[in-house]
């Protein structure tokens, strides 16, 4: 049953994966070939926005589009538990998100690893960006689960990003990491993106807190999806 659900999700997401891979690969290749910026600059300028935009586009297709087209009400009348439906959607979403980064990351490591940055540094950077994207993806899915339109999902996702942006500004402005503790910044998904510059103890604070948050988001998503009312009265 899970296989059938995954097949359906993959059929719906595959063109987004293909498009994202082509776009990411193309832009990175152009940037690295022309050398208009140092390699690190090219990767940051192309991959950082992709880390933020791609989860929004993928998440939109998982629930909002299905709700808009009223196919989610068709899906949930099948003899399959909501946990399995959600698991298939989340797994498909993660695969669809990770695949373009994995393909492009490998290509970049093979092509320019050791030129300005070591392959290990490049790979580490990609893992960090991917992890940040996954946590943002989870926040957006939880906040946008009830959206019935793609546009609303995008708006909700932008609000989520905005909230974490404001949080980052507040932490910075009030020097909360110094006055209260590093955990005030480690709560923010963008803290994952800054792990390259963090001390070892701070790295563990971020990893622990973000793992707990991710587990909580997963539980929240399951709980909300289980109670989701679909169809008309």
């Amino acid at each position, binding site marked *: 049953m899970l296989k059938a659900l995954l097949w359906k999700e993959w059929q719906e997401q595959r063109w987004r994966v293909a498009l994202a891979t082509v776009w990411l690969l193309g832009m990175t290749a152009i940037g690295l070939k022309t050398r208009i910026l140092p390699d690190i600059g090219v990767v940051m300028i192309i991959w950082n926005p992709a880390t933020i935009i791609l989860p929004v586009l993928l998440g939109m297709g998982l629930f909002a589009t299905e709700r808009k087209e009223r196919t989610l009400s*068709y899906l949930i*009348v099948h*003899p399959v538990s909501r946990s399995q439906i959600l698991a298939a959607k989340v797994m498909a979403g993660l695969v669809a998100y990770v695949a373009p980064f994995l393909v492009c990351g490998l290509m970049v490591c093979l092509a320019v690893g050791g030129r300005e940055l070591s392959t290990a540094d490049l790979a580490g950077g990609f893992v960090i960006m991917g992890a940040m994207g996954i946590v943002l993806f989870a926040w957006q899915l939880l906040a946008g689960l009830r959206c019935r339109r793609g546009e609303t999902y995008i708006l909700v996702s932008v609000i989520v990003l905005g909230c974490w942006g404001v949080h980052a500004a507040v932490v910075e402005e009030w020097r909360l990491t110094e006055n209260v503790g590093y955990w005030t910044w480690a709560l923010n998904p963008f803290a994952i993106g800054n792990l390259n510059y963090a001390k070892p103890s701070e790295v563990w604070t971020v990893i622990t807190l973000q793992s707990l948050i991710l587990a909580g988001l997963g539980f929240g998503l399951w709980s909300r999806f289980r109670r989701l009312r679909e169809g008309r009265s």
Partner: protein
Amino acid sequence: MSETAISITDLHFAYGRHKILDGVNLDVPQGSVFGFLGRNGAGKTTAIQLLLGLLAPQSGRCSVGGHDPQTDAVAVRRAVGYVAEDQRMYDWMRVEQILKWTSSFYPTWDHAYAQQLLRQFDLPPKGKIKTLSKGQNTRLALLLALAHRPRIVILDDPTLGLDPIARKEFLRSVITLLQAQGTTVFFSSHLLYEIEPVADWVAILDRGRIVKAAPTDELRDTIRRFVLRPKASMDLSKIPGVLDVARQDGQWNVTVETAGAETRAALSAAAGDDVEELGLNLDEIFEAYVIGNRGREVAPC
């Protein structure tokens, strides 16, 4: 037909403060074609969603094929074939793809029967769902609901949006087929002329309550309309089971729930021998229950 396929006991459901179902009780006999009638917004779809475990009631219980939808929704959906009103499927799939995909959810899926229905319903296996007509879409939804050979089929206004010929064809082919197989059919509709020729049981849902549930023949036999011209003063409140009274040019049409001797005597006392007794069709019976004035708004003459 002695056993119960679907049982609903004191079911309550509300969206916030808006009550949708207010103490619904219903038993659907096994093997029957059960017409579930109600106006638009009466709560038919909500009741069906509760039966399938898609919604949770505030209180009350229901059982479908011996399973409780609240604790074992997957078993209920496995035992039931369901067609929703104006059902939307994945329009990027081909007919053969959705058949294969749906079959993976049902251990009892009968591939040979699915192919037989595919030919019988005249559906193109290679055709994409988005290219199918409304009628073909409904037939495909039905095929998907029947190919696992369910013991109970729940049809929620399945012919909504079809033209009259397609509706007749659908009823003729489907209900007859299911009746012959002894499948219980729970058929919700607001088009009474659709239900009348095929339903052997009928329940009328109005404002969240079942106002009547009985075999169709029994309804036709017991609910009568009396046409009379009262000569003496008549107090309608004394006549038992009055559903509706319509008065026009001195002529009264009194619809009663159970036309017993007491009723006939009360009417004869008021109008003498000038009382005509008429049988009613399902449409008129439904109207009497749902918009009947119970004789309240008619002043005694």
